[in-house]
Structure formats: structure tokens, C-alpha cells
């Protein structure tokens, strides 16, 4: 019996195929090439810089006020009283509010609150959503009760949950973040659960199970890494809507305490005199709109690159 003949051209055909493989661009290169990621990312970068550099951007302490400098128009010069009681000259680039506080300083410092709340909410809701989603998708006995609770949360409009929770707890940075994050959890949970249900059928998970790998290790070591891309996209959108919700809470007077420099608070203070001084509402409003827009554009870009299947749907 002779061995089956090996085609003579097998080795050469392999090597020509090799030569045909085009160097695939890495994810980072794809991201860097996408316009949405560039624009959204750049705008976010500028906002982060503004937030970090707030003290050196010609601002004063955002809680300082001066009765002599009330209701100044943008660009007007006036005085402001420091905590030590000294009067210093200050140019009010965006005018001042009815307490004589510098709106420019409050808007610039407001960037910090908005970004912190947005990022923290995204992190908290993704973290809790991942834990819940992995559990529901992998521990069958937990699936039904957990998902029914999530359905219940989703049936209550998110902003109402946030408003009610902040009203019940004392409004602080932490309570605002948690209150905004909670209604976002079910969406993340559903996403992770759906991913887990499809990934757990993959051969490599079956292989891991048959090798006796622990459930914990399969969940976090094998399944979780495959959910990262959609989660980044989802997290970005949560970040945008959380910044928006924070501003709404402050604006309605149920968010962070009013002396806190948040964009919503500045607008809430300014709305009373909107007819005479519309800029008190418009300056923080522009910052808020640009921030949310930047994060949303970034999110759309990330979705296009990281999650092409979802990008096709919308």
C-alpha cells in the first residue's frame, strides 16, 4: 500500500496565499482614521484639559460673590471679594449672576462636575450591569428573577427614578451619580446577557467547560473579554446621557446643592432673569450641549469601528 500522494504544489500554494494576506489595520489605527472618533475625541480632550486646568484659566473661586458686582454684562470689569475679605479686580468674561458670582469661573469649574458625573455614571452602571448580565446569562436559576426586576426598572422612565432617588437621599456628588446610574443598569444587563448567551455556545467556551474550568473563570476570563467592545460603546452613550441628566436635575432644583458650580445650577439661577440676561442661561447651555454632542459623536465613531454589527442596525 502506498501512501496517498501529496500534491506537489501544496507548499507553494500556501506560500502564495501568505503573500496575498493584506496587513490588517489594528483597532487603534482604525479608530485614529475615523472622523467621528477624531472630532469627538479631540473635543473631549479639550474639555478634560479645561476641567484639569480650571484654576489657571483666569478663574476665581466659583463660590466667591460680591454684592457690588451683581448682574454684570459679559466682559464688564468689577470687583470680587476673596475668602480673606480682600477686594480684587476681576473681569467678568461671561458676566455675573444675581449674587455677583463670576459666571465664567462657574462654567469652567462646572466642566469638572459634568465630566466626573458622566464618567462615574458610565463606570458604575457598566460595572453593575456586567455583574448582573454575566450572572443572568450564566447562572440559569438567577436569569428569570433578575431579568424581571430589570424589566420593572426599565418600565419606569429613567429620569423619574433619578429625581425620586436624589429627593430621598441627601443630594451629594455620590448620591447624584448613583441615582443617575441605576436606571442605566438594565440596558447594560440586557446587552451583556444577550452577548453571554451567544458566546457561551462558542466552541472555546465548551472546550473550557470540558476541561473543568471553574464557572467564575469562564465568566470573567473567557466571556467577559468578548463583551468589551460593545460595552465601551454603550458606556460612552451612558456618559453623554448622564451628563445631561445631571444638568436636568440641577436645573430643576433637585440635584447638587445650588452653590455647587454645575451647568444646571447656573442655568437654574439664570432662568429667573432670563429676559434681561439671557447669557446666564446660554453660556452654560452651550458648554453642556457641546459636551454631550462630543461624547455622542465619539460614541457613534466607536460604534462604527468596534461594533460594526450594531452600526448597521441604526
Amino acid at each position, binding site marked *: 500500500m502506498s501512501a496517498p500522494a501529496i500534491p506537489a504544489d501544496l507548499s507553494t500554494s500556501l506560500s502564495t496565499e501568505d503573500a496575498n494576506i493584506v496587513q490588517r489595520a489594528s483597532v487603534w489605527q482604525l479608530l485614529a482614521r475615523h472622523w467621528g472618533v477624531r472630532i469627538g475625541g479631540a473635543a473631549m480632550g479639550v474639555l478634560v484639559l479645561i476641567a484639569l486646568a480650571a484654576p489657571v484659566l483666569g478663574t476665581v473661586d466659583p463660590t466667591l460673590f460680591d454684592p457690588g458686582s451683581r448682574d454684570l454684562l459679559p466682559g464688564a470689569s468689577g470687583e470680587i471679594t476673596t475668602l480673606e475679605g480682600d477686594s480684587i479686580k476681576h473681569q467678568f468674561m461671561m458676566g455675573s449672576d444675581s449674587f455677583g458670582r463670576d459666571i465664567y469661573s462657574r462654567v469652567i469649574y462646572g466642566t469638572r462636575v459634568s465630566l466626573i458625573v458622566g464618567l462615574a455614571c458610565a463606570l458604575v452602571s457598566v460595572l453593575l450591569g456586567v455583574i448582573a448580565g454575566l450572572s443572568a446569562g450564566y447562572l440559569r436559576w438567577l436569569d428569570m428573577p433578575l431579568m424581571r426586576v430589570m424589566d420593572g426598572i426599565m418600565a419606569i422612565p429613567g429620569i423619574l427614578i433619578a429625581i*425620586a432617588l436624589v429627593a430621598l437621599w*441627601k443630594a451629594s456628588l455620590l448620591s447624584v451619580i448613583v441615582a443617575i446610574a441605576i436606571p442605566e443598569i438594565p440596558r447594560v444587563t440586557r446587552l451583556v446577557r444577550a452577548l453571554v448567551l451567544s458566546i457561551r455556545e462558542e466552541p472555546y467556551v465548551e472546550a473550557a467547560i470540558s476541561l473543568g474550568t471553574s464557572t467564575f473563570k469562564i465568566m470573567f476570563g473567557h466571556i467577559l473579554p468578548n463583551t468589551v467592545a460593545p460595552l465601551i460603546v454603550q458606556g460612552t452613550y451612558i456618559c453623554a446621557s448622564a451628563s445631561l441628566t445631571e444638568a436636568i436635575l440641577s436645573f*430643576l432644583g433637585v440635584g447638587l446643592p445650588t452653590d455647587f458650580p454645575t451647568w444646571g445650577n447656573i442655568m437654574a439661577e439664570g432662568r429667573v432673569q432670563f429676559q434681561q440676561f439671557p447669557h446666564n442661561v446660554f453660556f452654560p447651555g452651550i458648554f*453642556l*450641549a457641546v459636551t454631550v454632542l462630543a461624547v455622542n459623536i465619539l460614541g457613534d465613531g466607536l460604534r462604527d469601528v468596534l461594533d460594526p454589527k450594531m452600526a448597521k442596525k441604526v
Partner: protein
Amino acid sequence: MFAFLVKRIAATVPVLFIVAVLVFLLLRLTPGDPAAIIAGDAASPENVAKIRENLGLSKPLIVQFGIWFGNVLAGDLGESYFFKVKVAALILQRIEPTLALSFCTIVIAVLVAVPLGVLAAWRQGGWLDRALMSFSVMGFSIPVFVLAYILIWIVSLKLGWLPVQGYQRIAGGFWPFLQHLILPSVTLSVIYIALIARVTRASVQEVLSEDYIRTARAKGLPENRVLIKHALANAAVPIITVIGIGVALLIGGVVVTESVYGIPGLGRLTVDAVLARDFPTIQGVILFFSFVYVLINLLVDVSYLFFDPRIRY
């Protein structure tokens, strides 16, 4: 079909029950003592204890829930701490403005968004398509209250065309009623337009690549009939779905819009109740809004039967 209706309606019962449990628990998480809040700052401890007894707050949590849930089923949402009237009566009192605002918003949104979405899908990649997609990203991003103030500033203060704020009951004449409603509805509809237009575009685009569209064109049907009768009719289900899902956005928007425009509806009531820490009212309003949201999505599901005869449950 009847079996489907019964099954679908039965499926909403557990959701509504869980919502009730969550709303009940939500207010039990509060660190403050409701009895102390009702009694006010100057109350004696005996007074507070008496109120607590009256409200049944000293009973076990599950018993409290049972009593509360029984009352809710009977249409009794409790009495407002602040307004000193029944919450159900309060909601009925405030429902007209909210209903008018929501209805107007949905009508504007659908009338604007659906044609735009269809046209954008028809000329995919054209200027209208690109403009619509940019608008939709912006529509999602611009906060409702910022947009509200921009519109008030231009339309009411600079041009003087419409009243700055306030609400006129429909009983007081249709024109004043409409006049006060236009600006808030337009404001609120922008985010909704963004959402619906985007989904309409995606859905119609998908249908337009089907074979029967080519057939319809090949047999010489005019393009508008192809777009409306063949494309839009078959793309309806996702559009109807997103209109239903968008009601959650709408409710959030109502709360903000009513505050900006000084409309005395349910959204304003929510904010007033929260500021006054009026727990029964907060509870009642959230329960009511959630109930409406679940019911609308039930209607949406049922409407599939009408919009897509292929669906047979």
C-alpha cells in the same frame, strides 16, 4: 389572535406588579421618617407617633405593601402630604396639559420625522440624508431646556410671535390653547424627531433593497407610490416600535419642558412634589407614568397585527 391578545396582556401584569414593588421600596429607602415629615418641624413626639400609627408605618414592611397595593388597585394612591388632597384627584386635575403637550409633540414628531426619514433613505448619501443624520446627532445632544430657552428667546422675546410661557385650558378657547402649546411641543419634539427619523431611514433603507421594490419600479409604478405603499408600509414595524420606546424620553422631556414653560401638568407636579418631599404624590406620579408607558408599549405590540399582516401570533 384573541389568544395572543390575552397572552400579551397577561404578560404585562407581572411587569406592572414589579413596578409597584419597586416604587413602594423606592420610598421605603428614604432615611427620613415620613411621619415626622407630615407632622412638620414643630410636632411633638406623641403627635409623630400618632401619625405613624395612622399610616400603619409600624407594621411589618410586607403588610404595609399589601395594604398600599390593595389601595392602589382600588384606585386610591393615598393623600398628598403637601396639597392635602387625594393623589388620584391631583393627577386627574393636572392631566390635561400633559396630555395636550404629549399629543401635540407626537403629532409634530411623526409628521416631520417620517417623511424626512423616507426621503433620506430614498436618496441615501445625498445632501438631505447627510443633513438629517447630522441633525439627528445634534437633536440627541441638545438639552431640552437649552433648546427651550433658545426658542423662547428668538420666537417669543425677539419676534414676539408667541407667549413666553404659561398654559391656557382648552375650555378657554382653542386658539389661545394652541398658541401656548406650539413652542413647548416644538421644543419637546426635536429629540423625538431625531429618534424617529433615524429609525425610519434605517428601516426604509433596508426595505428599499428588497426584490419587490425592484419589481414595483420595473412595472412602472410612480416613485411616490413605491416609496409609500411598498417601502414605508413594510418598514412600519420598527418605526412604530421606536415611537413606543420613545415615550420614556417624552415623559422625561415633559418634566423639563413643563418646568421651563410654566405648564401646570404632571411633569410640574412631579418636580413640585419632589421639592416638597411629598412622598405619596411622588409615588403616585411615578406609578402613573410607568403604567402609561407599559400600556403604550402594549398597544404598540398589538398594533403590529394591523401594520404587518404577516405577523400571526
